[in-house]
């Protein structure tokens, strides 16, 4: 009888330790998850800021000025444009 009790006690202790360990691991993993989520949010914020920057650099008025002034580009004279139509259309 005493042997059985001792065995049960050992099992109980093992279970208890297992519970504590798994709880600890859960919390550790959860805090990792939290950290990654925070990182994702920060990256999202950065993405927004980069998008903002891209839009600012890519302002059509700015692109047009640079194209015309610095690169000397201009729209082709319509007389020099040849329209290529896909097969089968007019």
């Amino acid at each position, binding site marked *: 009888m005493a042997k059985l009790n001792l065995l049960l006690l050992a099992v109980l202790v093992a279970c208890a330790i297992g519970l504590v360990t798994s709880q600890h691991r*859960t*919390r*550790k993993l*959860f*805090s990792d998850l*939290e950290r990654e989520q925070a990182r994702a949010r920060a990256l*999202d*914020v950065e993405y*927004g*800021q980069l*998008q*903002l920057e*891209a*839009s*600012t650099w*890519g*302002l*059509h*008025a700015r692109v*047009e000025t640079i194209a015309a002034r610095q690169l000397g580009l201009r*729209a082709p004279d*319509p*007389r020099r*444009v040849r*329209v290529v*139509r896909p097969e089968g259309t007019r």
Partner: protein
Amino acid sequence: MNAARQANAGLVRMPLWRARFVAGALVCAFALLAGRSLYLQTLRTDFLQEKGDARYSRVIEIPATRGRILDRSGDALAVSTPVKSIWAIPGDVEFGSGQKRKLASLLGMDAREIEKKLAETSRDFVYLKRQVSPETAEAVVALGIKGVHEQREYRRYYPGGEVTAHVVGFTGVDDAGQEGVELAHEATLAGKPGSRRVIKDRLGRIVEDVQSIRAGQDGVDLTLSIDGKIQSLAYTTLKAAVEENRAKAGALVAIDVRTGEILALANYPSFNPNNRSRLSGAQLRNRVITDLFEPGSTLKPFTIALALETGKVTPATMVSTAPGRMTIANYTIHDVHPAAALSLSQVIQKSSNVGAAKVALAMPSEAMWDMFQRVGFGIQPQLGFPGAAAGRLRPYKTWRPIEQATMAYGHGISVSLIQIARAYTVFARDGELVPLTLVKTNAEASGEKVLSAATAQAVRAMLELAVQPGGTGPRARIMGWRVAGKTGTAHKQENGGYAADKYLASFAGFAPVSAPRLVVAVMIDEPSAGQHYGGSVAAPIFAHVMQGALRLLGVPHDAPLEPLEVPRAGDEAGEST
């Protein structure tokens, strides 16, 4: 000996009451303990659990980020990004030596201004400065002033600036929409902040999610139908034209005929939504949608279309317009170019008021009212945009003959520019009125049938004639595409009458005529640099924007790529409305 015996006897024979007293005291003590524990366990349990939870569990707010607003190609028009606000508890603030001066210079404020804000010691919370850059906030916190704190907030940035200001609108300091699309789509853009209960360890890390109290939701991104390139082209063209004509204001709208999407919507004067410190009402007004005006001749095609629809007339039917004026009840209608008789086509081409009035008077007022109403005049456009004006179209029963006559050429009725543009989709789409949208759909829209296809095509031919040499709007033509449209020049209403020298020049049209793709409507308010006709002020803007937009959209040419014989400025036929 005696004493010893006595003591011995005392040990053996204790009085019974003492034992009972001790036992009783012990029982009482246990009962007290049991009672207390019962009390704590059952009656106070909620309170105690709460106290216990407060040691490690926290409720944290999950802020919702506001959705971005994008143009149809995905370029950002409005983005929220976190900034910091500096706040203080006035009662707690203690400045060290020189700290106040440093704080003031960091925040770009006057030291006295800060003192004034901190003077109200009864308050627990005072913003020192809202929306500063994260770097500034870091420097302020590094000063380590007691009672001064930072808080994270969102600020909205508009990279498009003044070009898209009226469409996108703006948000207030609390990041809630106040104007334009920001206000119209507030519910979906804003999202819902959530909150949840978590367990934190002694280092403040979240170790367990206990419960989600309110599920939060981030704002949804919104993709507008606006095409950034066409919008930019429209705005710069409009701005240049308003300045060149020394006009008070200008407005332009471009609609994709097939989808009903608004590709460009520009107003001038505009404002910079990123810096709204000095704003006037004139800058803020979205004239395309909220301003009503008497459109003038741009309405004539609807009168003629109605006449054609009855089947009693054809485009070749002659109308007598001699001697170029017509008097009804003390009011005389004039033509700028008097002619003896004009065909219906010529009434549009030459923009004859007398001709349009005569055509209108031959029809019942109810039919005309019905026509105007069916193309959307007098009805608020279903745009989901704040402040969309309905316009004024009085019930036909109250019309007098002179009113019916003037309405034929667009006077005595008020409409917004977007209503005009939408109504012109009827001619561009073989008689269908298309519902408009500011949100990208990219799907073929199905419209409501207002006119027969034959009538729409006939009017289309007339409108093409109106931009040919000899019409009122030859400067609306562009190389490579066939264009159709109608000019409008209206006297402005002032103090209940018409101002003699204040005009409103407009042009509405579409291209390419063989398969219409774009409707563009332009309005210039009080041009005062010599020219005031729609054909000389508004038509060139139309041509420039239309040509650029068709090229950007890759619309196939339907006219030879030959230079047009460009009429000199002021050469086109004038018109009085």
